[in-house]
């Protein structure tokens, strides 16, 4: 069995092409079934995200010189009504070790637009689960994909690739952790309900923040968002009164001047016994007076601060990515070796099984003529048949084991024989 990957990604194709070749979720099962019809491929997984479209396939090793990827190309072009030249220009075709290496890199988020972002691992997992439900994966890809997820986990644990935040909304969480350690028990207030503020609030809630207050000039919008986030809407006039109740304030309004002033924060601090507060100003122009940063127990960050952390963390990730690549190289080598070995064992197993079944089928056929056999006679016959099978298969098995370097035409020939055999069944 050979692993083949055909795909396009944000590195090889512009978004227009990716859009054309992307699989709509509703059509994925149909596509998977068409792929894994044994004619095109034996097993298949399709990963289709906004940044990449990839077909991961397990294919029988071909006996002729046909390129295994070309069948996948035909399929992709056929399915999406796309000219072969366009696909050829933008796609990459990888087989065996190169394919395994690529799958491990993608799953571990080393091939991502933002290296180390965890979403891709989840997306590949979903793609694999769908393939399982559709029945388009068998032994080989199941093993490969499970290994890929284990490698992704290892990369995450052993390198710092995912340990620091590179998006502004996550940076806000990271900063909050440096002030409060544990977000459990904190209350967040959004002043203005911009998209970025909403995203940051969601991250904070996911990371343990207990409560969310939303103040917005248009009260209805605050109510709507509060329902969505399971929080509490606050009238805009009231936000100052509620400052004392919150640990984290995220401000993003379109106001041209400062909305939160040092005097307000001083009052809030006094009534909350100086328990620390963190203010995040993601509005441009700024909505929180920067003088607030001079107060004790208050920590103010603006968009530039968040962005500078994000940039530093990204550079850190790229350094960690080098270590991750070493892990991936090691894992690829190991898996490729395991795969090749599994392959020769499968051929040997099939060969032996066939020889045995022929021998014992003949025994059954001759039963009538043999008449009643005693237990000893029956046992002696079975021993004899087994000995014949062994003596007959031994030289072939020996030859197969010796030729197991992954490229042997001898092994390929036997493999071809058994795959044809399987297909007939």
């Amino acid at each position: 069995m050979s692993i083949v990957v055909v795909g396009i990604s944000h590195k090889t194709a512009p978004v227009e092409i990716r859009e054309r070749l992307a699989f709509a979720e509703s059509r994925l099962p149909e596509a998977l079934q068409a792929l894994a019809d044994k004619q095109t491929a034996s097993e298949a997984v399709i990963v289709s995200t906004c940044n990449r479209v990839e077909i991961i396939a397990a294919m029988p090793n071909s006996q002729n010189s046909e390129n295994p990827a070309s069948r996948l190309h035909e399929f992709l072009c056929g399915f999406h009504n796309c000219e072969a030249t366009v696909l050829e220009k933008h796609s990459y075709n990888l087989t065996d070790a190169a394919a395994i290496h690529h799958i491990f890199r993608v799953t571990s988020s080393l091939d991502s637009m933002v290296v180390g972002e965890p979403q891709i691992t989840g997306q590949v997992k979903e793609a694999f689960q769908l393939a399982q439900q559709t029945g388009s994966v068998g032994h080989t890809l199941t093993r490969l994909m499970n290994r890929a997820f284990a490698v992704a986990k290892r990369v995450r644990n052993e390198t710092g690739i995912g340990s620091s935040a590179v998006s502004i909304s996550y940076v806000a969480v990271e900063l909050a952790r440096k002030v409060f350690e544990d977000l459990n028990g904190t209350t967040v207030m959004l002043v203005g309900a911009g998209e970025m503020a909403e995203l940051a609030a969601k991250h904070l809630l996911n990371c343990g923040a207990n409560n969310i207050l939303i103040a917005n000039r248009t009260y209805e919008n605050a109510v709507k968002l509060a329902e969505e986030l399971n929080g509490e809407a606050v009238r805009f006039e009231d936000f100052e009164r509620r400052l004392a109740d919150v640990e984290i304030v995220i401000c993003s309004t379109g106001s041209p001047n400062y909305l939160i002033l040092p005097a307000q924060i001083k009052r809030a601090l006094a009534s909350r016994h100086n328990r620390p507060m963190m203010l995040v100003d993601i509005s441009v122009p700024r909505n929180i007076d920067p003088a607030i940063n001079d107060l004790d127990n208050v920590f103010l960050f603006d968009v530039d601060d968040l962005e500078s952390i994000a940039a530093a963390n990204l550079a850190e990730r790229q350094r960690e990515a080098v270590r991750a690549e070493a892990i991936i190289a090691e894992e690829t080598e190991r898996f490729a070796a395991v795969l090749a070995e599994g392959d020769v064992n499968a051929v040997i197993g099939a060969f032996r099984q066939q020889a045995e079944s022929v021998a014992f089928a003949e025994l059954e056929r001759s039963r009538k003529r043999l008449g009643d056999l005693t237990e000893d006679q029956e046992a002696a016959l079975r021993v004899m048949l087994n000995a014949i099978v062994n003596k007959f298969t031994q030289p072939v098995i020996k030859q197969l084991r010796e030729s197991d370097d992954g490229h042997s035409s001898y092994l390929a020939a036997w493999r071809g024989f058994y795959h044809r055999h399987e297909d007939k069944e």
Partner: protein
Amino acid sequence: MAILLVSALTLYLGGVLYSFYVFATKARRPDKELPMIVLLGFVVHTAAILVNWYQVGHFPIVNPREVSAFIGWAIVAYFLLISRRYQARALPVFLLPLVYLLLLASMVLPETSRELPLLLQGEITTNPLTKIIFPVHVTLVIFSYAAFVVTFVSGVMYLIQEHELKAKHFGAAFQRLPALNTCDEIGYRSLTIGFVLLTLGVVTGIFWNNQRDGRYWHNDPKEVMALVTWLVYLFIMHYRLTAGWRGRRVAWLSIAGFVIVILTWLGARALGGYHVFG
């Protein structure tokens, strides 16, 4: 005894180097080894102190060597107690070198008499209670010092981290030091514990005074300094509870309090008085 001290010293040095290593490498790794190394050092250190106690036949906290070793021991004991609760990788980086230096000092300081001062010897014969109250008084005070060391270190960590956050330096210190709330919590808890221990230490001292000569207070330099220390920490606690003083202000005050602790320990010695030892 010397071999035990050298072994403990070596283990602590291992702990120092290992804590630096863990601190420097950022990848999250389970940090189970460090408490083990320190615990091992602590066990050996304890054995060294017990052997010394056995050899000299009285609670071994008479000369500067012994005091230094005992303070180091108390700091490690306190660290081991709180390290279960706080996974602050930065704490041992500050504490262990200090412990190492204290233990080293206990080996290189000039060897003075290991005998009990005559004053105490005489007292023990006339008042058997002294035999108990002496170790209790000293142990309480020294454990309060250990807790104040941690308060001091937490204050320093707080100020560094606070500076990084305010100045928007998101560099190495920012990444590695604990969160502000954690620094504040470790510092304040240790302060409370230290305060209770110091209070008990002072009370036992006053009680002992009274036992000896019917006077509660002698205006001995060390007594006065201890009272000042006690008042500083009381002041911090009072304003924290009533006015919500915390963070930077408390961190600075904790550092000031610790300077007075050092003066009480070393300075009072220079000024004389009957607290001649320690």
